[in-house]
């Protein structure tokens, strides 16, 4: 194993014994496959060789950036990924995009992180699953000198990553809540809530924010019912239909995201309730903005995944260049979109929304 070959692999933090051993360990693997006796010497020799390779030099290859999304089917993550790819091309970096198979696929995300680290990425952008399950893999990645950035969703605890680029989901929820409250005016609220997945971070934050914006406490009798719909239009419609069966006089509906809002809208429409119920959502997808324009729901809170992805990739590129690490929570913003303005809130109309929506 020549030192040239060794240096072409991205070097890692010199603290980590694993990173020093990597080149050597490959040689070992080859040697084990061939002849065991030679292997011992080969290992020690290449180990020395790799240590002599100057730290921090980058070979001919472009900076590699890994992206791990929750799934690769949700259009939101597809857009995130496209934007990341675009930015990577701009930065002259190479993006490797991986994903879990479904919401909650911790095992898939862990494997993706491990494989990206093996691959020699400079940084990993991840939209983590709700649980603590992937923290171990993230820590291992950081220990090996990989910059880890959470996109869209925070990890718990936040320190598990170097930085987070996300919508402040509490704020987003709060904007939805404030809008609905203002739209209701003096009418006392009777609320149904279409939540996402039990225990999900984003789900919990938006839910909490919405109630803050409405000025309601959790468990307030004004909340007539809530149901998990996993952000799925079909499930949301079913959930809404069922909720409407037992709740009467509903005048406000919270939805986790736009697919849920569309499902809720279909259920409301079937009951001829669309005019009587203030329905709003969060996401800012182009279809969502169009829905608002078409009057299916009153407002949506736009988030900016393109920004998250672009800023994340740029941060990794900067880190590769000069070692600067971003830190903390970087709010990429949230914007209310509606054609029915209410006083006291910063609202952009759907024309602006359609220009700035993410997909």
């Amino acid at each position: 194993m020549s030192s040239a070959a060794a240096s072409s692999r991205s070097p890692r933090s010199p603290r980590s014994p694993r990173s020093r051993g990597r080149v050597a360990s490959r040689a070992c693997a080859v040697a084990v496959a061939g002849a065991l006796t030679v292997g011992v010497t080969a290992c020690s020799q290449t180990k020395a060789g790799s240590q002599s390779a100057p730290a921090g030099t980058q070979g001919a290859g472009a900076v590699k950036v890994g992206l791990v999304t929750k799934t690769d089917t949700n259009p939101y993550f597809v857009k995130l990924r496209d934007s990341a790819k675009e930015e990577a091309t701009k930065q002259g970096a190479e993006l490797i995009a991986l994903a879990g198979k479904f919401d909650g696929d911790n095992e898939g995300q862990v494997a993706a992180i491990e494989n990206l680290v093996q691959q020699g990425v400079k940084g990993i952008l991840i939209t983590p699953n709700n649980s603590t399950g992937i923290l171990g893999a993230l820590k291992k990645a950081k220990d090996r000198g990989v910059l880890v950035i959470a996109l869209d969703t925070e990890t718990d605890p936040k320190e598990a990553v170097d930085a987070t680029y996300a919508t402040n989901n509490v704020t987003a929820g709060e904007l939805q809540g404030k809008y609905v409250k203002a739209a209701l005016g003096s009418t006392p609220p009777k609320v149904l809530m279409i939540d996402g997945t039990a225990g999900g971070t984003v789900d919990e934050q938006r839910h909490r924010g919405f109630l803050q914006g409405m000025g309601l406490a959790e468990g307030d009798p004004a909340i007539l019912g809530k149901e998990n719909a996993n952000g799925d239009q079909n499930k949301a419609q079913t959930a809404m239909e069922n909720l409407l069966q037992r709740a009467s006089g509903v005048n406000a509906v919270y939805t986790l995201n736009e697919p849920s809002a569309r499902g809720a809208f279909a259920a409301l429409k079937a009951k001829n309730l669309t005019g009587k119920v203030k329905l709003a959502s969060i996401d800012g997808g182009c279809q969502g903005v169009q829905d608002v324009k078409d009057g299916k729901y009153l407002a949506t809170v736009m988030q900016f995944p393109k920004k998250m992805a672009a800023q994340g990739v740029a941060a990794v590129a900067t880190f590769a260049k000069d070692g600067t690490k971003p830190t903390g929570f970087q709010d990429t913003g949230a914007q209310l979109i509606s054609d029915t303005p209410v006083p006291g809130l910063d609202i952009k109309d759907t024309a602006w929304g359609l220009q700035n929506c993410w997909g």
Partner: protein
Amino acid sequence: MTTAPTRPRGASTTRTAGGVAERLLRNPTLGPLAALVLAIVVFSVTTDTFLTLDNVSLVVQQSLIVATLALGQTLIILTAGIDLANASIMVLGTLVFAKMAQQGTSPLLAMLIGAVVCTGLGAVSGALVTRLKLPPFIVTLGMLTIVTALGRLYSEGNSWPVTSDLLGFLGSGSYLFGYFYVTPGMLLMVVMFVLTWYALAHTAWGKHVYAVGNDPEAARLTGIHVDRTVFSVYVVAGIIYAIAAWQALGRIPNADPNAFQTGNLDSITAVVIGGTSLFGGRGGVWGTVVGAFIVAVLRSGLTQAGIDSLYQDVATGILVIAAVTLDQWARRRSL
């Protein structure tokens, strides 16, 4: 069948056309093994990060859970059954382990109770298949739905982090010779596969499992207790799923009711790629190891090669179809 010591010309023992087919029938692991070796060679040549001791260790760790699930699945498929509920049973197991431990039950007791739950659920499937004579596909489809819901109810929708060293033990590990990361989970997997192989190849129970899957009527006529054998297989599979639950917590120290939603299909994929016939009675555990490794090797290797994750699914799908085609072809040639 003739008294003459010289072999009569008409009575050739095998059709010559069946040569390759018979070799495949006798050793259904050959095909998948060749595919595994090919994949390893290709990735070793095309990337310089794949064939490292570090990465090989990772690939093994990444295949542990699916391989363990697939071990139980192999037994059930050998009886011409199928288990769609295995991963949901495992997930419920992880939840019982983690939640009870977190709420103050001793981890060992929590694990015992979880193991009883998993085994009991396996027994329920087995009883429904053998007593009510329901198709395993339907039984386990129902069980999948029920057990998934039970998991969500029991977990209260939350995920339960591992709080005890015992529960996470299988994922702890150390470097062997300084480079190869070995976890107790790997060793346990080896032990489980060897034990299951032994039971299948070297005990009467194993012979009966094959016979029951191959031809239940013939098995019954030769005096094998068909229902008892099939039931025992589902119970053993339940025990294996409990161990899979332990493996899962070792790797992901967090019991999540939403995890492993595709574990059932992943395990079937590993079994089928490994050359075990979905029609029962043919195949074995070594093929399943190979099948599980192939999936993990593809995932790792294609990532190292910088190839989009969706192509990994494409490759896996092609392998499944190829494996079943090969099985069908070999069977047709020999009949």
